[in-house]
């Protein structure tokens, strides 16, 4: 059984429907101790990084224990960001730290070299770059190397994104997408995987990626 961790970050209906569609057995643990019987763990999430603060020490220990038992871990969207050390979106909230690096706001890379622009607030145009944030829609995947997650998925396949922050390209990066700058669309490091896009909203390609991950979750 797969533990679908619900820490109150948005709505899990779509993930549930997709998992049910591919025939995955899953449940939503109410407390960390339940993770002891998880064969695989999914950390979903949409919205703000600070919501991951709900994944407190007992949850992190339970997730680490599952990893130590070789249970595959999959982070989706903010769930992928949480696999990293943290995010500038909520600097006081620590990520799991399974992957080195910090997530930053899309388009912020070039901003840092430019003078501060204090009058800019959310939702107003950035005339310098014309990069709309959030990054919403279908964008293509470019694979850094062959991975289990993308078995049978052709280079350039498009998947659905909706996010304002992104993870840097690191050795664990499995797929790169470019929006303003390249970022980690997916990571895979041993049994730790994450996708910035929404496989549950990416049509047949997304379902295939979920199945690929599922096929490495030990059965029974």
């Amino acid at each position, binding site marked *: 059984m797969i533990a679908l961790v619900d820490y109150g970050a948005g709505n899990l209906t779509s993930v549930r429907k997709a998992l049910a569609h591919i025939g995955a057995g899953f449940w939503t643990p109410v407390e960390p101790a339940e993770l002891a019987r998880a064969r695989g763990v999914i950390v979903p999430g949409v919205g703000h990084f600070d919501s991951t603060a709900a994944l407190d020490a007992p949850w992190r220990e339970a997730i680490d224990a599952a990893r130590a038992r070789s249970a595959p871990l999959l982070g989706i969207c903010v769930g992928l960001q949480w696999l990293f050390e943290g995010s500038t979106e909520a600097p006081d909230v620590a990520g799991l730290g399974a992957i080195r690096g910090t997530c930053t706001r899309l388009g912020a890379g070039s901003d840092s070299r430019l003078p501060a622009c204090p009058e800019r607030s959310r939702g*107003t145009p950035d005339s310098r770059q014309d990069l709309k944030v959030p990054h919403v829609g279908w964008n293509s995947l470019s694979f850094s190397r062959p991975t289990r997650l993308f078995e049978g998925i052709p280079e350039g396949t498009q998947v659905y994104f909706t996010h304002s922050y992104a993870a840097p390209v690191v050795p664990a990066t499995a797929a790169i997408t470019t929006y303003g700058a390249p970022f980690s669309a997916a990571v895979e490091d041993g049994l730790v995987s994450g996708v910035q896009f929404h496989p549950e909203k990416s049509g047949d390609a997304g379902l295939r990626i979920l199945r690929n991950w599922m096929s490495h979750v030990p059965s029974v």
Partner: protein
Amino acid sequence: MLSKRIIACLDVRDGRVVKGINFEGLREAGDPAELARRYNVEGIDEIVILDVTATLESRQARAHTISAVAHEIFLPLCVGGGIRTEGDAAAAIEAGADKVSLNTAALQDPSLITTLANRYGSQAVVVAIDAKRQDGRFAVYVRSGQAETPRGAVDWAREAAERGAGEILLTSIDRDGTKSGFDCVLTAEVSTAVNIPVIASGGAGSFEHFAEVFTAGRADAALAASIFHFNEHSVEELKRFLHLRGIPVRLGPGTGGP
């Protein structure tokens, strides 16, 4: 590169898809889940369900339609029409909607945008703006295009974005159902005024119209209903056309792309 999205709108009344001309004169077009399934096969990027005659009692009926469509397709699904309260939005999202589209309610109480953005994230909040050309400006209308407001489309779009909306769904009342092309002037004005994606709606009649709204109109996505419903054109053909015109689109397995 980020693709321009092609979105199919299902105008639903009493559980059936209908489509009006200039917001009136509805004619029947079919079962929502059935249409959604067809669009998914053809490579649609997103589905919008618009409950055109939503009333308080219809919340359950709406949930049923959302659930039926969400069961068929694994694509982004947005629901609008009659989302007036946080409870309406919660019910739609619970039933399987990824985003809700606010129209009249957002104008009456703009704080609803922020409330929903805080609860579900900005990506889940679309503000729908129905605009009409009037004395050289774009006036915002509410109540399915029936009531004029003192707001201008650009100004309201900007405020909606600042309050936390993740996207703007911009409909030209003048063009809606006419098949005479999107209002590219309106779309470009709004799209350049805000830093969030703008979905153009109203007036799609030919493939050329889509190319225009993605270039001159600076739209991030384009929405259409009747052009797809009655099998006049397939989504697949439209995307092939746009691809050949150098406009980035997601090509499905049936269209020669990945």
